[in-house]
């Protein structure tokens, strides 16, 4: 056992001697998590305070629909509406050309007569209903048909994000539904007034009566609210943790290149002891790295008006998950470091594979937004297992038993990686060269 401790001491000394490298290992991930949180969280919150997404609005209707859509877009506080450019009213052709050039991202064209068509359609429908009450049989109004519809064109910059496009379309549909229902209500009032002169319509417009309250079930802590911090901090902390593949494989390959490993191979000590010492020391690095990123999420991000990270109260579970996630990351690094022959191979494969595992794991795009096939693949990413477990611990007050499946999967991943490293070393041992 003392050979293991001696190897741990040697690894620690080598790490400490490269103080600048060690500081980078801790500081760079913290900077990364803060910048990404700022970019994402601050970006959206600043939008709501200072509308900055320009939308070209070509109102050929010049009536209620155009006015209401403009009003609705303005009230969202996300869009800045342009109906004139350089003192001239916008036209359909100009708007289309500006979107095609990429000068603007979105243009909405409300066609001529839109309000009149809707109004007519609503009037026909209301008249049929009301007359049906008055003349249930032989009603001439029942033969009137109105299948007219309007087509609002929306031009999108081809480079615009799909999710943003869907959100915009949903908003537009909401505005048009609201406008139609308001018109129906108003038409009813008008028709009823015609039929019953004594009828007094309500003084105020119809107000929506269905509201939505956001509740995020989180066990005992119902106040836990998901935020970009809550997704970003564990996600980027895990990403950084798996990036340990770069210094770790660097250390392994350097040891081989400098000849120290040749000397060790002639000594009565197993390769397993040597790399387990490496794993232990680098696991401490990973854990410190993770703790620093969590602390940044809790105490530094709120200084920039970003919601603080909620970590729940299962500290033992969090510590256990940190250890297990570190082992998974280090097992992967050991496998890459054993198989790779050069720094270039290790760095290229290490970086790309961690990025792929991160993307597949739903750390960039949530798994539920992925296509079906990718969702199935995501379930095989160790970063996904770790991320799911951390979210459960942080937000859902999960117990060790709750995250046990993820712990087991990560430990199995570690064991598989170590086995691959040992097997590869056995079949490619210098002994057999």
């Amino acid at each position, binding site marked *: 056992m*003392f*050979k293991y401790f*001696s*190897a741990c*001491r*040697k690894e620690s*000394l*080598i790490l400490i*001697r*490269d103080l600048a490298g060690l500081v980078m290992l801790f500081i760079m991930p913290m900077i990364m998590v803060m910048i990404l949180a700022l970019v994402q969280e601050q970006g959206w919150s600043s939008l709501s305070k200072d509308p900055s997404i320009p939308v070209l609005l070509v109102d050929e209707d010049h009536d209620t629909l155009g006015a209401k859509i403009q009003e609705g877009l303005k009230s969202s506080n996300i869009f800045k509406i342009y109906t004139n450019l350089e003192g001239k009213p916008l036209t359909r052709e100009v708007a289309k050309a500006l979107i095609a050039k990429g000068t603007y991202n979105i243009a909405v064209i409300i066609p001529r007569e839109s309000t009149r068509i809707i109004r007519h359609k609503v009037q026909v429908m209301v008249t049929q209903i009301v007359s049906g009450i008055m003349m249930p049989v032989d009603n001439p109004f029942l033969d009137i048909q109105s299948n007219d519809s309007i087509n609002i064109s929306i031009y999108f910059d081809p480079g615009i994000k799909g999710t943003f496009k869907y959100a915009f379309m949903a908003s537009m549909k909401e505005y048009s539904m609201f406008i139609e229902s308001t018109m129906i209500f108003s038409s009813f009032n008008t028709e009823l007034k015609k039929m019953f002169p004594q009828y007094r319509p309500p003084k105020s417009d119809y107000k929506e009566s269905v509201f939505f309250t956001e509740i995020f079930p989180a066990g005992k802590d119902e106040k836990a609210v998901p935020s970009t911090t809550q997704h970003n901090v564990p996600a980027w902390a895990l990403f950084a943790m798996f990036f340990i593949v770069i210094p770790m494989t660097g250390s392994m390959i350097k040891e081989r290149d*400098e*000849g*120290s490993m*040749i*000397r*060790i*191979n*002639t*000594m*009565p*000590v197993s390769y397993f002891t040597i790399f387990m010492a490496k794993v232990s020391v680098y696991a401490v690095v990973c854990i410190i790295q993770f703790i620093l990123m969590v602390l940044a999420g809790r105490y530094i991000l709120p200084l920039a008006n970003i919601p603080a990270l909620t970590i729940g109260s299962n500290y033992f579970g969090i510590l256990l998950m940190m250890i297990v996630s570190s082992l998974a990351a280090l097992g992967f690094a050991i496998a890459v470091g054993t198989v790779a022959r050069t720094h270039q191979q290790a760095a290229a494969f290490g970086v790309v594979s961690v990025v792929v595992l991160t993307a597949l794991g739903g750390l960039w795009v949530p798994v539920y937004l992925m296509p079906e096939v990718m969702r199935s693949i995501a379930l095989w990413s160790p970063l996904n297992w770790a991320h799911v477990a951390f979210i459960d611990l942080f937000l859902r007050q999960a117990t060790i038993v709750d995250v046990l499946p993820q712990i087991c999967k990560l430990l199995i991943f570690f064991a598989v990686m170590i086995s691959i490293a040992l097997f590869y070393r056995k079949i490619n041992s*210098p*002994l*057999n*060269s």
Partner: protein
Amino acid sequence: MSDKVIIEIRDLVKVYKGSEEPAIKGISLDIFQGEIFGLLGPNGAGKTTTISILCGLFRPNSGSVFIDGLDIHSNLNKIKHIIGVVPQDVALYPTLTAWENLTFFGNMYGLKGGRLKEKIAEGLHVFGLEKHAEKKIANCSGGIKRRINLIAGLLHNPKVIFLDEPTVGIDVQSRVVILDYLKELNQKGTTVIYTSHYMEEAEKLCTRVAIIDRGKVISMGNPRELVAEHPEFKDLENIFLHLTGKDLRD
């Protein structure tokens, strides 16, 4: 030197993966306990391959090796306790000090505590390196690195020590210190097997030498006896050139 064979090599063959030509072609040798045995040969002759097989770094394709009666194939771990290896290149951690390197390698041989400190201090003293104990290897000169490289292989008092060109690229003073120490070790009973390109050094130091070329032993014996057998060649270097030729090797 005793009559006991400490290393028995029989029909050793090694072909590297991807190579058609064997690096060694059926070498057989007996090395006796307490010998200073020199493996001499031009570049690519098979010296380093032979030493690498003897210290367990490579596995031969065929043939057998017994060290102190133990089959290297089945008792490698036991053999590692009784051998010391000094690789051709300096195999130390550049960012660690001399003391830290020696402590780590000593620990790997199972040495610890006061005994290890004593052995390190002794090694540093013998090679005049006390004042460099706390210096990082990266900041040491080539000669100092070579000497520390040597100490690292000797800390556990091995029965057999393998040295692969231990004096290459160092000044005369360092070479003298290293060779004197090897002699001293040998007098205490350690068997020394070393490779070298320096014929004069081998002639003075070795009890026996084997001249290897193209993977085969082409001559073997006491250096002085070899010279006596070939009086026309005055010294070992001329015999070596006669046997291996003057063609440049890769």
